[in-house]
């Protein structure tokens, strides 16, 4: 019996989004998204398009397709120079979302000041290395340093195209 392969989509922050168990409407939307994305639209046009499609179908924002579309939009924006490449804030936000579901739940569980976390996400404050270490411990994550080239590869439009092709097979 053939072993079922678990398919995943990896975001610019390394988050793994399983795409093996998508509903029919999610798969159909993802196939249309793939087609549109491959035409490399201007960043905000792609955003307008996928948001309208998503609303039309009535999927929940909990759908993996929602997160994938946000990721694809960011990749286009980064490639076109209109969005900053992800920094530690984006990685933290994604980890918190994946592990706790919301910043509120994360702050309640860890005692981190929600105001301070919001200021960090807005780029108006930074976490000290000590505070970051504590947060990473709770999130079961670690700090790594990567080269610009590795970071570019991780956020590339082409990498997402490959992941989408695999997800919609």
């Amino acid at each position, binding site marked *: 019996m053939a072993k079922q392969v678990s398919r995943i989509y990896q975001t*610019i922050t390394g988050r793994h989004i399983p795409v093996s168990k998508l509903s029919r409407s999610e798969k159909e939307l993802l196939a249309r998204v793939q087609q549109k994305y491959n035409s490399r639209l201007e960043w*905000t046009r792609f955003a307008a398009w996928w948001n309208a499609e998503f609303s039309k179908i009535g999927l929940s924002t909990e759908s993996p397709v929602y997160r994938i579309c946000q990721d694809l939009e*960011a990749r286009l924006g980064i490639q076109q120079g209109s969005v900053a490449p992800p920094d530690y804030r984006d990685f933290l936000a994604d980890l918190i979302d994946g592990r706790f579901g919301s910043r509120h739940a994360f702050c309640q569980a860890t005692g981190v000041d929600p105001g301070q976390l919001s200021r960090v*996400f*807005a780029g108006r404050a930074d976490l000290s290395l000590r505070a970051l270490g504590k947060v990473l411990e709770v999130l079961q994550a670690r700090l790594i340093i990567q080269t610009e080239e590795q970071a570019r590869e991780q956020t590339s439009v082409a990498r997402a195209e490959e992941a989408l092709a695999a997800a919609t097979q």
Partner: protein
Amino acid sequence: MEERRLQCEFFIPIVRNSDKKPHQPVAWNLLINEIRRVFPAGHSGPETFYRGDALVPGEYEESPGTPPVADTSRRYILAIPESKVNDLRLLLKMAAHTFDQLANYLSVAGTVEFVIPTEEDGYL
């Protein structure tokens, strides 16, 4: 009878005010998540939100009498019930902090206002 909806249009500059650098992906995600949370689109009926079709060039004055500064913004259009316009103002105050802006341009059914946040308004 369904409540009357007003067309609201607002602009978010694509760079931060203080250092003119583009925003992190997380900022754009937080904005759209909040728009969808506060103004959920119905599964049928008129679409409640339409996201800007392109980047919009514009300009602003940093202070009266100074030459205008050119900028580029992302345009958003929402058709929301009249009773929820204030919720949009609150959202834009938080967005101003998250996107490092002194104020956000908002047009409600053609009437323009500038939404200026205070420190108490918080962040997205």
